[in-house]
């Protein structure tokens, strides 16, 4: 009986794993139709679709955690799913708070890709190392995840700012000009997300540095992952300082936000998978 339940549960998780990218795709399709075509049906269904997608995603995370006896943080692809979920939730908060729905297509594109890669490559890990059951790790991962979600959102708003900036400068008054919110608001949203992201990543780094020496003695501070993380942190720190003290604003800050995000993704994927020694526990 219990084996049937396990088979069914695993089948259910696999089903959700396949369904989730499709749901995210349907959601961004509705947001895209609303943005580019202003289609009424799309405008009506986009929010319920997003709600349904996030509900399924919640069920997926809970089911996976219960079934495999650990939260989905043991591989970069499991983390991708959590990042997709966190960005989705953060976007819902932003949409409810600002009442602006026109940026949804661009923001939700990221959860779609994160979940797609997660669904394609996530594998069951037979044995979970004991170190992945630490409370400090949970704190480290949570703050890092929220931080990544925040800087992802910041980068998307930065990217939208740059698109609108370009269109206004070059007198192209098309759909981007018509539908996006104004430059000042995009900059403010990007900056707020950057500040959140920076604080959370700082916490993640500090917790990581406290926790890491406890679990391994082989830690090297020249490890590419650690080095990359510090560089990213320094870029964001210098950007925020330049804004505060040097009065940086507008395009420069947005370029910095997009650049910081690109480096972060590079650090999370390529460096983490191929060069780092300590950030892989499986």
């Amino acid at each position, binding site marked *: 009986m219990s084996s049937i339940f396990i088979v069914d549960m695993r089948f259910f998780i696999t089903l959700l794993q396949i369904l989730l990218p499709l749901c995210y795709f349907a959601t961004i399709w509705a947001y895209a139709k609303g943005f580019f075509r202003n289609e009424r049906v799309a405008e009506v269904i986009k929010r319920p679709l997003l709600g349904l997608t996030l509900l399924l995603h919640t069920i997926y995370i809970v089911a996976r955690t219960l079934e495999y006896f650990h939260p989905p943080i043991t591989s970069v692809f499991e983390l991708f799913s959590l990042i997709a979920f966190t960005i989705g939730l953060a976007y819902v908060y932003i949409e409810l708070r600002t009442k602006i729905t026109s940026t949804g297509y661009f923001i939700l594109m990221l959860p779609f890709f994160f979940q797609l890669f997660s669904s394609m490559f996530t594998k069951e890990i037979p044995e979970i190392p004991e170190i992945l059951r630490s409370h400090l790790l949970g704190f480290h991962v949570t703050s890092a995840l929220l931080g990544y979600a925040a800087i992802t959102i910041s980068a998307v708003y930065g990217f939208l700012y740059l698109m609108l900036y370009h269109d*206004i400068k070059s007198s192209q*008054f098309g759909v981007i000009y018509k539908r996006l919110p104004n*430059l*000042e608001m995009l900059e403010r949203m990007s900056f707020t997300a950057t500040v959140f992201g920076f604080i959370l990543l700082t916490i993640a780094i500090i917790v990581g540095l406290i926790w890491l020496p406890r679990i391994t003695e082989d830690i090297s501070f020249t490890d590419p992952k650690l080095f990359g993380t510090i560089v990213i942190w320094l870029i964001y720190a210098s950007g925020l300082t330049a804004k505060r003290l040097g*009065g*940086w*604003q507008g395009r420069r800050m947005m370029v910095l936000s997009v650049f910081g995000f690109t480096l972060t993704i590079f650090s999370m994927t390529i460096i983490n998978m191929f060069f780092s020694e300590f950030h892989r526990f499986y």
Partner: protein
Amino acid sequence: MNIFCLGINHRTAPIEIREKFWYSSDEIRAFLPVLKQHVAQECVLISTCNRTELYYLPQEQSVYDGSLWQMLASQKNASNVVREENFYSLSSLNAVKHLFNVASGIDSMVLGDVQILGQTKEAFTIAQQSRCTGIFLHRLFQTAFHVGKRVKTETEISEGAVSISYAAAELASKIFEDLSRHTALLIGAGETGKLTAKHLVSRNVKKLIIANRTRQRAEELSAQLGGLVIEFEDMAQQLQHVDIAISSVESHNYILSTHDLHRIMKLRGNKPLFIIDLGVPRNIDPSANAIDNVFLHDIDALNHIVDNNLAHRKAEIPKVQHIVMDELIQFNNWYNSLQVTPTIQELRERFESIRENELKKHRHHFPLETQSELDTLTKRIINKILHTPMVNLRNGTGELEEDETRRKVHIIRTLFGLDKKKTE
């Protein structure tokens, strides 16, 4: 459908005639009772700068009264300037469709004009207060407002600026989140510049500063728009402190070079600066647009916005026409439902369904052998209740009493919720 529309608008009469026909609210209030006394059972008069239209139901079953335009003309002492050709007269569904087109903004001089819906509502309110509306015009205008609302939410016919000054103000709102935190500088006192400043003021710009070569003209503008006047020579220095600048001066040389703007941007800590150059020849070196956070737009760019928006509005017309047709059909269905025979039929069905439902619920309280009698008895009660109102309704279908009959039918349909049942 005995409804007429008599009017003049921007297509049939030049401004010299239209302005003679403009009725103020007070004039409409005074004129409507006169119309009701001599011409119409129900009437609404809409008067704006581009149209004056009378929607009315004549007192007698008749075609268009050819002398009515003379009555409108003499009321405004305009008999000597206006001719019959300046008027159009529409009847029945054509009049209804015309009102829907007006409310939707596709009949306006500026395609998609949103003001007309408010003006139509105001005209209807005045007519209502003057007791000149009945069930027909009430339903007609409510449907017209519904058309206007649907058009606003379901189409983009009113989207985007269609004047240069409005396009400039809209562009400012695409750069800055809240204009009440930003100061604007008006350089020169050209008409488009003034209109742009006016739009910015209406969007609550924090402060307006005016610099003009002739100070007196600047002060006149300041009196109109409420701004601070500075010397023209101090204009460049002021650019450090303002976020929006509108320039429309006559000058053969640039009044601001790229070098000037580089310097100004440094002084203002690279904060975004939006400059609208309305001058021809241009007032500001166009290459200054390459400077980071400087948004420089000339009159061609603004014209481009206006042309784009107008083209977009035109492309929305079929959607609007679809809504108008949809509502026209529904309105016509409502009108046709005011016939006596179908209403009697529906009323019978309503009573019969109540009877059947109640019998079904309580039939088991009665012995089996009395069931047939119970049926007959309840049917008889229903027939007796309905008999007198039905006879009275049928007796009122003579041609002269047609409108009165429709009123009665309307009341019955409302009281017994027959239209509601249909929509359900």
